[in-house]
C-alpha cells in the first residue's frame, strides 16, 4: 500500500534551486513565524542548475553602468520580446543579491579598493564551484524553513479558483505527500529533454542544464490554466562540441573568436545576439564551411592552466577532454555546435505570464526563476532577485488566503494518490517511459525544428507534431511503473509532453522568424513587425487558447486585469 504523508504550511516552494532557496531565505528572514516549506525532487545541497558550480556572476550592474542599460541589452538580445517591468525590477536587485552571496561565503574577486572585479560589461569573477552548498547551508540556518528532499510534485491542489497546495510522491519510497499551503511558489527549472539531444546514445545528458529539469514547473501551471508566454522563444545554446560545456568562458575570458573551417571569422555576419551566435555555426556548417571553432590556437600556456581550472569549477568534462586527448586549447581550436532546443525562462522569455510582483494569473500561485516568463538573461543573480521579489509578494498577499484543512487537501489529492498507486501496481504495459520519451524526442526533432532539420519547421510539420505528441500523451496515461524511480520517469514524460503541446501552440502562433538561431519558421522566414507582441497561451478545459498581448515598452508596472 502507498503510504500517504501530509504537511500543513503557510508558504510552499516547489523546487529548491537558486530561486526557490532564496525565496525561502527572504521569507524566513522577514517573518520568523512564517512556516516555509521547500519541496525538492533531489537534495537542495547540489540540485538544479548550480550542481557543478558556475564560473562567473553573469548579471551584475558594474561600475558606471545602469539597470536601464541592462534592460536595453536584454531587449536587443531578445529582439524586443521582453517585459521592461520584470527585467528592471530584477536588475535593481542583482548587486544586492551578489553581496548576499558573498556574505554567505561565496568567493568574489576584488580589486585593491575592495570593489568586485568585472569581466566585460555585466559579469563579475567568482569561485563558484561550491555555490549551491553555500546557498543550501544558508537555508538550513532558519528554523522556520522545512526542507522535504527527494519528493517530486506532480500536481497543484486547487480549491475553486485558488491554488491551495500540492501533491507528489517520494523518489525513494512508496509514499505520497499531500501538502496544504496558503500560497505556492513554483521555482523549478525549465524544460530539457523535449528534443532529441546532440548525443542520443550513452552520453545523452549534458552538464550545462539539468536533464532532470523536465518542465514540471510549467506543466503544473498549464494544468491549472495559468497563462504562459513566449515558449516559442526556444533556447538553443552555442556550446563546445560533445561535452556541451559553455563557450563564454573562452570567448569572454581569452577573447577567442568564432571561425569556420576556412579560418574565417563569421560571427558579425549573423549578428552577435545569443540567437545570432547560435545561427552562425549552424548556417556555416549547413553551407559547407564547417566545422566551426573558437580560435584558441596560440594561447599561452599559463592562460591554458587557468582555463582548465575555470572549467573544473563548472563543467569538469571539458577539462578532462582536453587533458586526456592531449588536444590542448593552445594547440587545437575548440570545436563548437548548437544544442537541441530547450524551454528555459532564465535565458529567454519563456514561462508563466506574471505581474511585476511575480504573481501568475492563477490565485495563490507565484513564479520565479527559470519558469517565470518575460525576463530573459536572469542567470544566478536574476533567479535570486525573482525569488526575493516573489517572497515579498507572498508575505504581502498571505493575509488574504485562509488555510485549507488537511482533510480537504487529501480529498483534492485523492485522484492523484490513487493514480500513483495504480501505476505502481499495474502489470507492465507494452511501452515504458523511456521508450515513449525517445518517441517524443524524435517527433519534436523531425517535425518541430530540432537539430537534425537545422532548427527549421513549417505549418505542416507542426500540425503533424501536434497530432503525434497527442498520441504519445495518450499512451503515457497507460504507463505503469515497476518502482518509484520509474514512476518519476513516467511523470517526467507526462510533464514533457504537456510542455511540448504548449510549445507547439506557441510555435504556430508566431508566424514569423524572429530568432533564426533558435528556430526558422520556413513558411515565414523573415522577421515581421506585426509580431512585435507576446504570444501567450492558456489551457481551457484541455484546449490551448492563443492570446496575443502588446509589448508594453516603457511600462514599469503591470498587474493582471482578470
Amino acid at each position, binding site marked *: 500500500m502507498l503510504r500517504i504523508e501530509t504537511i500543513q504550511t503557510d508558504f510552499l516552494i516547489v523546487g529548491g534551486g537558486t530561486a526557490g532557496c532564496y525565496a525561502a531565505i527572504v521569507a524566513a528572514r522577514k517573518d520568523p513565524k512564517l512556516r516555509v516549506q521547500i519541496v525538492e525532487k533531489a537534495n537542495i545541497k547540489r540540485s538544479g542548475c548550480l550542481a557543478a558550480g558556475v564560473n562567473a556572476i553573469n548579471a551584475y550592474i558594474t561600475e558606471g553602468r545602469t539597470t536601464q542599460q541592462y534592460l536595453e541589452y536584454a531587449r536587443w538580445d531578445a529582439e524586443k520580446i521582453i517585459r521592461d517591468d520584470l527585467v528592471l525590477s530584477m536588475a535593481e536587485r542583482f548587486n544586492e543579491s551578489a553581496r548576499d552571496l558573498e556574505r554567505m561565503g561565496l568567493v568574489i574577486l576584488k580589486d585593491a579598493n575592495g570593489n568586485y572585479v568585472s569581466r566585460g560589461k555585466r559579469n563579475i569573477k567568482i569561485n563558484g*564551484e561550491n555555490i549551491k552548498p553555500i546557498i543550501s547551508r544558508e537555508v538550513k540556518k532558519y528554523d522556520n524553513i522545512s526542507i522535504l528532499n527527494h519528493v517530486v510534485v506532480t500536481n497543484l491542489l486547487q480549491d475553486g479558483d485558488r491554488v491551495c497546495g500540492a501533491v507528489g510522491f517520494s523518489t525513494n519510497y512508496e509514499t505520497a505527500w499531500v501538502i496544504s499551503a496558503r500560497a505556492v511558489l513554483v521555482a523549478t527549472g525549465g524544460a530539457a529533454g523535449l528534443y532529441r539531444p546532440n548525443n542520443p546514445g550513452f*552520453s545523452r545528458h549534458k552538464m550545462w542544464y539539468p536533464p532532470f529539469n523536465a518542465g514540471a514547473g510549467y506543466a503544473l501551471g498549464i494544468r491549472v490554466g495559468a497563462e504562459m508566454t513566449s515558449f516559442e522563444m526556444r533556447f538553443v545554446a552555442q556550446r563546445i562540441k560533445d561535452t556541451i560545456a559553455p563557450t563564454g568562458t573562452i570567448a569572454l575570458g581569452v577573447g577567442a573568436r568564432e571561425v569556420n573551417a576556412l579560418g574565417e571569422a563569421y560571427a558579425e555576419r549573423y549578428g552577435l545576439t545569443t540567437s545570432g551566435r547560435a545561427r552562425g555555426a549552424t548556417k556555416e556548417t549547413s553551407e559547407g564551411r564547417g566545422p566551426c571553432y573558437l580560435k584558441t590556437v596560440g594561447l599561452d600556456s599559463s592562460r591554458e592552466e*587557468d582555463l582548465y581550472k575555470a572549467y573544473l569549477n563548472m563543467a569538469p568534462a571539458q577539462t578532462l577532454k582536453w587533458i586526456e586527448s592531449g588536444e590542448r586549447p593552445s594547440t587545437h581550436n575548440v570545436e563548437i555546435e548548437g544544442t537541441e532546443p530547450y524551454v528555459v525562462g532564465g535565458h529567454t522569455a519563456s514561462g508563466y505570464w506574471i505581474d511585476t510582483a511575480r504573481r501568475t494569473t492563477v490565485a495563490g500561485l507565484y513564479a520565479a526563476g527559470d519558469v517565470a516568463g518575460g525576463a530573459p538573461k536572469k542567470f544566478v543573480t536574476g533567479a535570486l532577485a525573482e525569488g526575493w521579489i516573489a517572497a515579498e509578494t507572498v508575505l504581502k498577499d498571505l493575509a488574504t488566503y485562509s488555510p485549507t484543512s488537511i482533510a480537504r487537501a487529501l480529498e483534492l489529492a485523492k485522484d492523484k494518490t490513487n493514480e500513483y498507486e495504480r501505476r505502481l501496481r499495474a502489470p507492465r504495459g507494452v511501452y515504458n517511459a523511456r521508450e515513449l520519451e525517445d518517441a517524443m524526442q524524435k517527433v519534436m526533432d523531425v517535425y518541430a525544428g530540432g537539430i537534425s532539420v537545422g532548427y527549421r519547421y513549417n505549418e505542416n510539420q507542426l500540425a503533424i507534431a501536434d497530432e503525434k505528441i497527442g498520441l504519445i500523451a495518450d499512451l503515457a496515461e497507460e504507463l505503469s511503473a515497476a518502482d518509484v524511480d520509474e514512476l518519476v520517469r513516467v511523470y517526467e514524460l507526462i510533464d514533457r509532453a504537456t510542455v511540448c503541446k504548449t510549445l507547439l501552440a506557441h510555435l504556430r502562433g508566431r508566424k514569423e522568424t524572429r530568432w533564426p538561431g533558435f528556430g526558422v519558421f520556413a513558411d515565414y522566414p523573415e522577421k515581421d513587425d506585426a509580431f512585435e507582441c507576446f504570444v501567450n497561451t492558456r489551457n481551457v478545459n484541455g484546449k490551448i487558447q492563443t492570446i496575443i498581448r502588446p509589448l508594453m515598452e516603457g511600462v514599469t508596472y503591470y498587474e493582471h486585469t482578470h
Partner: protein
Amino acid sequence: MSILIESERCVGCGSCVEACPGNLIKRDADGKAFLKAPDECWGCASCLKECRFQAISYYLGADIGGRGGLMKYERDGDLARWIIRRAGRETVTITVDRRSSNKY
C-alpha cells in the same frame, strides 16, 4: 559522461546517494553505492565532491570522444585536487584553491 564507483573503496556512507541531483545512485544489498542508470548521469561531479574516500571516478562516454581516462577528486582543506589518469600517459593533477577566484 558518467562515473564508476569502486566497491572496495566505498564504505557505504551514503553521501553520494544523498547528493546526486538525478537520484541515480542507489545502495546494493551490502549498503554500498552503485550507479543504477549510467546513461542517465550528466557528469556534474557532485558525487565525486561528496565522497571522502575517493571511491568515485569520472569518465567521458566513447560517443563524445572519451579515451578511457579516469578523473578523481580529492579535497585538502580549501584545495581541490583533480587527478586525471589515462593508461600509457603520465598522471595530471590540477589543484584549484577554493579561496581564489576564476581568472576567466
